[in-house]
């Protein structure tokens, strides 16, 4: 794993303080605020009287999911980078590494970085875990969803960067528009792709038995949809990198994305 220089770069980068960490600390404050706001305001007896348990864990997991998706999009668009980390285009153009190896290292690095960010959020998750039911399987599913979602958004960010990255303003808005689009209209119209709905199903009260959550087809569908979309995005990214390597597409040509998809 460490033989891939992109992975090494991430492993070194996460031990150094930089803008990326500071940015995520800001998002961690947001998660902490969510945890504080959703912390049970009444006692156990009152909860039993109302027959509604606390939604603390679901709220925190949703917050972690959204913030990590946002962070991954920005990281993909190279708005935030780890200290000493190089851009994807630099790896493709300035090194003899093949696009496949670059992509593998990029994805693995993203996974490691996401796990590190999850670890940063882990005290918050553990605080909410017991009061909200404490079902490890459901939490594991949700965290897996967060990771695969982050992967997808990272790839989307990278595609955005490779296609319109030279237009900083457009790239800035495109990154945020992707997040908004995927969370609000797509999530609303196709609930199976909604991470909010997924977390709500997994950790909410409607689930009769959370240990049986894995048997719910929606859980697999969500992961499969995001995995499928990630694979498609990875293929597009690979083609973009290959095209960039071959110098067949101009670096400032916004039509590269369309051509890469068409080919």
């Amino acid at each position, binding site marked *: 794993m460490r033989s891939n220089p992109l992975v090494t770069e991430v492993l070194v980068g996460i031990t150094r303080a930089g803008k990326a960490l500071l940015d995520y600390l800001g998002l961690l404050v947001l998660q902490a605020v969510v945890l504080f706001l959703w912390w049970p305001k009444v006692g156990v007896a009152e909860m039993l009287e109302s027959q509604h348990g606390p939604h603390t864990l679901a709220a925190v997991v949703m917050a972690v999911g959204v913030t990590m998706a946002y962070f991954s999009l920005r990281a993909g668009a190279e708005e935030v980078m780890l200290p000493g980390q190089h851009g994807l285009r630099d790896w493709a153009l300035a090194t003899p590494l093949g696009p496949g190896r670059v992509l593998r290292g990029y994805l693995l690095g993203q996974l490691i970085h996401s796990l590190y960010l999850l670890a940063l959020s*882990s005290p918050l998750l553990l605080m909410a875990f017991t009061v909200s039911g404490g079902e490890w399987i459901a939490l594991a599913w949700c965290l897996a969803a967060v990771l695969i979602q982050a992967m997808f958004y990272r790839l989307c960010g990278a595609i955005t960067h490779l296609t319109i990255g030279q237009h900083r303003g457009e790239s800035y808005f495109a990154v945020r528009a992707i997040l908004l689009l995927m969370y609000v209209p797509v999530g609303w119209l196709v609930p199976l792709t909604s991470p909010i709905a997924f977390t709500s199903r997994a950790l909410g*009260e409607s689930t009769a038995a959370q240990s049986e959550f894995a048997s719910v087809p929606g859980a697999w569908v969500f992961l499969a949809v995001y995995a499928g979309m990630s694979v498609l995005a990875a293929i597009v990214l690979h083609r973009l990198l290959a095209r960039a390597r071959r110098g067949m597409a101009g670096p400032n040509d916004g039509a590269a994305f369309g051509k890469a998809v068409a080919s």
Partner: protein
Amino acid sequence: MVANGDMVTGQGRGAPHRARGLQSRLQRLADVFLLLALPCVPPPTMAASTVDIAAVVGFTDTYQPGRWTPLNVTVTNHGGDVAGELEVQVTGGDELRNRLFLTFNRRKLELHRDSRKTLQFTVFLQGLSHPLVIRVRSGERVLARAEIDLRTRVAAERLVLVLSRDADLDYLNDGAANGLRVLYPHPELLPVHWRGYDAVAAIVVHGISLERLSGSQFDALHKWIAQGGILAVSGGPDYALLRSPRLSALLPGVPLGMTRMDGSVLQRAFSASLDVSRPVHVNRLGTFRGRARLRAGTVPLIVEHALGLGRVLYLTFDVAGYPFDRWNGMRELWLDSLRLPPAPKLSLSAPEPVLASPLMPLIRAQTANFASHATVFYFLALYLGLLLAGYGLSARQTRRRWLASLWSWAPMVLFAAAAWLLFGPTVFPRGANAVAAALIEPFPDSIYARLALDVGVYSNRSGALRLEYRGAEPVLYPTRQAQRDGNAENWVFGEGPQRFLEPLDRRRYVLHQLEGEDVITFNLNASVHDEAAGLRLVLDNASGRTLKDLWLVFDGYAYELGSIEAGARVERGFVRRTHGLEVGEAPWKRLLKPPPGRPVQTMEPTRILLERKLREMRESGYPGRGHALLIGYTENPFRPAGASAGWPLQEQALIAFRVAALPGNAAAGKAGKGLLEPGNVDSDRQSPGVRDAAAGANRRR
């Protein structure tokens, strides 16, 4: 392999075609065989026909709606060995408002080939429009299913059970409201739980021995009498039956032989209308407990003896023999002797509101709560602050790389561990909880006590909530409040190696509540003597449990007794002015303190339990004129067991023993019983025989 290969290749060019043709013919033949074989494969429902279900509802297939009733289910297996479960589905609730709920009573069932088994359930049949559904399951597969139509088995009257081979007491039948219906059940089908006698007004035993009953059946009968049942035993020429251990333990006295009575003497005792043309033989009694309600000279004809809150009558003559079998006055004689109390109102039809459950206050007082917002805030601030400090440190100290690496991981590892310790299961237990509030009311003159239970289960995680329990065998039912509100849940009750209860609602943070009642062994004997010098209490705690924070309330005064250890016998004198706290009729409840180590809020469940009792005893008052009340705490007999033994239990058990105060020096120095009937001829004390028989029955159980 090589040989086969040679053989195949040696078949020449036409061989593959021939082989293909043969294969095709074989396939067609196989298809035909398959089609022919399909009808021969029995579908699952047909396979289930090897198991038969037969059921007897109540007594001789007669039951009274709105009462607990026994249900005997006989399963016959004509096929191979069956290992599964027998399930009885009962529909309860308000049919008019369509607020129905289901209870599933389950038992393990193992049946070998060509064998039969009868299992008894005690079920609460609230209505009659929904049939009972009985299933035999093996895993998820239903082997047999039967629906029992209840509409044809209803009796509106109270039941009189006659256990006899030849007695005919049909003259007691009365179709009027609050009337009686005489049934002649087979002794082997009598209830195994005392609550199964709910619809029964009285039991008459004639010419049979109770030795035929199983241990649990006799135990159920004994408990039913202790909680207020009436047993009448007829004498006769075969008086040896009455000398058998079980009957002699219950009867006021043991027959020693027969006495010849002249007709005129009997006519004087009963009525002139009794047609007696020749002498009659009646059982001869020696000493007996209780009192003689009817005598002929010195010969007792009807002897009555109190057993707990119930009574046992011994009619020394043969009620089905000459001349009583043809006497028109027998009905009046029976009714006069039995003195049947009016039928109790069905709890749900009672107009008064049901008091709140004591479970919620118990949870409030005893359950660990969530960490406060302040704790959460400080924890989060510390964590984020430390991360920021680490960021600042590593940004400046670029030379010390190891320190930067440490700071990148140390806070999250440290705080993850701290979060688990401060907010995790060690502080706030994860999973299922049980909560039980009990009111134990010992019966006077009995080793038994009534146990009124409020049981609840809840969990802070979703999933199955199956509570296995021990210590009591209560009949359980959704709370009256839930039934009135129309939100009673569906439940599973089971028996097996361990009794269990399980709500079918698996949501977290939902308190699933039940009410239950039982008669438990709780041998507490007390006598209160109201003497000129003051009050004297003799208390014998043979209950096996320590009584804590015990108070004696009598005649507007309360006396503190403290703790009484299990097995202790105390005799204390109280002078009103010195020892007594003057209290009113109601404020005495304020005297009670929570058990040691419990917060003051623990008193709320006690208050609710006592309020209930006060409402129940509204007419006579509580403890009422001429009665003292011993009140305190003890350990709850209902406890999680088996797989649920580790469940946290929030519990409280209140003892309330109502004792009739004896004037002066009556029965001084003896650990007498609470109730001493006025006009007793002989000592009204439970004999060692009764205790031994009952204790033996409990040991067997």
